[in-house]
């Protein structure tokens, strides 16, 4: 069951940059990167630095009480940036809650990214203007949505592709398996992008599966690529391979991006309760940003100027995020009734009227009774 298209067995990992920054040759993957210029690589690097800075800032905002919760992506920058930067605007992305770097790459505004976590709304952005659905918190549910969207894109005769992002834990949910069944059966142009960050809250991936996650897809008749998720170039190449297959009628691909959640599950979590400290140390050596820096350095691109410019970009993003977050106005009470339905609904309209009446009674009488 080797993936004949890419020419390596799924148990092996596609890696194009080793942890020490060395570029690893790959006959099958390298052709997919031929157009990637030094400027492009710098762009990927800057994306990664910026999203890490956003992550830090959002975590700080949570600590300061400005956000209710934040799910950090620390450690997963390469997996998210490398895949999202492979996409076209007309592709459509269906994610879970942790894909803030994907949102960044899709052009979601920073304020829209934090809107949910400040508690102002259940979702932040217009899915159609950025090609990214409202995030799904019910684990795995979005993989079916991506499959359905892909089916529609195929019916429409386009070569747009749907990408479903989900975690290692999600692979245990029935919905994800059903999505693989449907995608295979209909040869839907969808990419299943699994960030195997080794943990689902406190549960290690070994509890979810004894086989590599990429093997899961093969059993459903879907080709897989197991990629070093901390290697932004390998992720970019793998995603391009999968997208191309989808665009050219080759159907779905499953990508297992092997990465690591370096932070807590969310700001509400304390990983020291369940995670051996040594494991984190081991993975710090494989830090995705460190790796791009080493690669850039090896190519003579990591100049002091670049570093300063990048820090500037990151600081600007952090400032924008903070200002946008704090500047968010509280929603108006009666908006609680908005958008339940697209068409009028007598029962709900009556509840709204009653509640408006009730609220108004405070204004006139200054309180109850």
């Amino acid at each position, binding site marked *: 069951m080797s993936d004949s298209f890419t020419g390596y067995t799924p148990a092996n990992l596609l890696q194009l940059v080793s942890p020490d920054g060395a570029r690893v040759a790959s006959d099958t993957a390298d052709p997919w990167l031929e157009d990637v210029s030094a400027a492009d690589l710098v762009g990927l690097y800057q994306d990664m630095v910026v999203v890490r800075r956003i992550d830090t800032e959002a975590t700080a905002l949570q600590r300061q009480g400005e956000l209710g919760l934040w799910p950090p992506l620390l450690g997963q920058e390469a997996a998210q940036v490398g895949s999202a930067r492979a996409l076209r605007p007309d592709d459509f992305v269906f994610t879970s809650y942790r894909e803030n770097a994907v949102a960044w790459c899709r052009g979601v505004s920073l304020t829209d990214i934090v809107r949910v976590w400040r508690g102002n709304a*259940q979702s932040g952005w217009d899915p159609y203007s950025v090609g990214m659905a409202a995030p799904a918190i019910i684990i795995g549910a979005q993989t079916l949505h991506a499959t359905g969207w892909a089916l529609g894109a195929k019916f429409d005769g386009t070569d747009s592709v749907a990408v479903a992002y989900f975690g290692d834990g999600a692979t245990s949910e029935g*919905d994800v398996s059903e999505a693989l069944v449907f995608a295979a059966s209909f040869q839907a142009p969808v990419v299943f992008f699994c960030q195997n960050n080794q943990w689902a809250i406190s549960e290690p991936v070994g509890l979810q599966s004894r086989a590599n996650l990429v093997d899961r897809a093969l059993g459903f008749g879907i080709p897989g690529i197991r990629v070093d998720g901390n290697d932004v170039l390998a992720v970019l190449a793998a995603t391009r391979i999968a997208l191309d297959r989808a665009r050219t009628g080759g159907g779905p691909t499953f990508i297992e991006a092997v990465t690591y959640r370096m932070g807590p599950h969310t700001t509400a979590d304390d990983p020291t309760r369940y995670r051996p400290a040594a494991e984190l140390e081991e993975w710090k050596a494989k830090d995705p940003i460190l790796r791009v820096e080493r690669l850039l350095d090896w190519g003579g691109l990591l100049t002091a100027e670049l570093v300063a410019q990048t820090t500037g970009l990151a600081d600007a993003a952090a400032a924008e995020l903070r200002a946008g977050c704090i500047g968010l106005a509280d929603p108006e009470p009666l908006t609680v009734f908005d958008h339940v339905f*697209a068409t009028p609904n007598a029962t709900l309209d009556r509840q709204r009227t009653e509640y408006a009446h009730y609220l108004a009674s405070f204004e006139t009488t200054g309180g109850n009774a």
Partner: protein
Amino acid sequence: MTMTAMTRPTASAPLGQTTGAGGDAREPVAAPRTPEPLETTTTLTMAKAINAGLRQAMLDDPKVVLLGEDIGLLGGVFRVTQDLLAEFGARRVIDTPLAESAIIGTAVGLAYRGYRPVCEIQFDGFIFPGFDQIVSQVAKLHYRSQGRVSMPITIRVPFGGGIGAAEHHSESPEAYFTHTSGLRVVAVSNPQDAYGLIRQAIASDDPVLYFEPKRRYHVKGEVSPELGQPMERAAIVAAGTDVTLLCYGALVTTARDAALAASDEGVSVEVIDLRSLSPVDYETIEASVRKTGRLVITHEAARSGGLGGEIAAVITERCFDYLEAAPVRVTGFDIPYPAAKLESHHLPDLDRILDGVDRALGRRR
């Protein structure tokens, strides 16, 4: 002699696997019949009326696609989608793999992409594997996306008992959905409504659960090619002055029969077919109860937590001073749907409804 001693060498012949991938139309085994035209008023069974409504919706809007198990060549186990595959092809009449959560979840994705999916759930009891996608996605996505994403999904569910079926094939799960904010729920009772409401449901920008009373699939009626009354309005199917009797789905016929029987005894029963279970058309019910002062509600679903209690509560809130007796419920019991030979003891029938009318009139306790 052991079996291993019986060995005679020969080539192992691998068995073939039947092919037939999704999305690729298989050849019809029998030639499809010409689809029912519906240009003038025609007599149709309810199953055929829904079929005609589906067909019209598909002709009207190329974004309407059907998804479900066995809906293609077979035309559905109740033949409601019969011949539609032949007419519209496998991209619009989609036989899906056997997975309800995926049927609904895929429809969500199709809706994201601008489609109007119509999902068929084969029997009432098989909707539960798809419950999460209905409750957490279909019902909530318009709200969650602040109105940016619409979910014009219709979910067709043959429901109710009375056909002597095996377990999970006779259930009435409507109250789970009427308690779910963001969904519209309708139940049809006759071919004309079945035709009009399936078209209205598909045209609705909100998700609609569309319940089909399976024991009435073969009952015939006149069907005109009109949309009829708006989906959210109840219909007074028999006028009366003494008691208001609410019903929906298969029990509408039973309720009308009960009203006839009652009239023989001089009791005038106003029968209202709810049609829309969410939202309920309280305006129509209130007007009736203000007139009659007495309310009976009947449904097959279990009593506790069923729609009857909700309506009783609302009408008590809104018409307290008009009510001469407490609203009466004539419903299935709080039991799992029983074995076929016992179902007549679970389902409300004419006698039990008449008993309810008597109780509403204070004639029995």
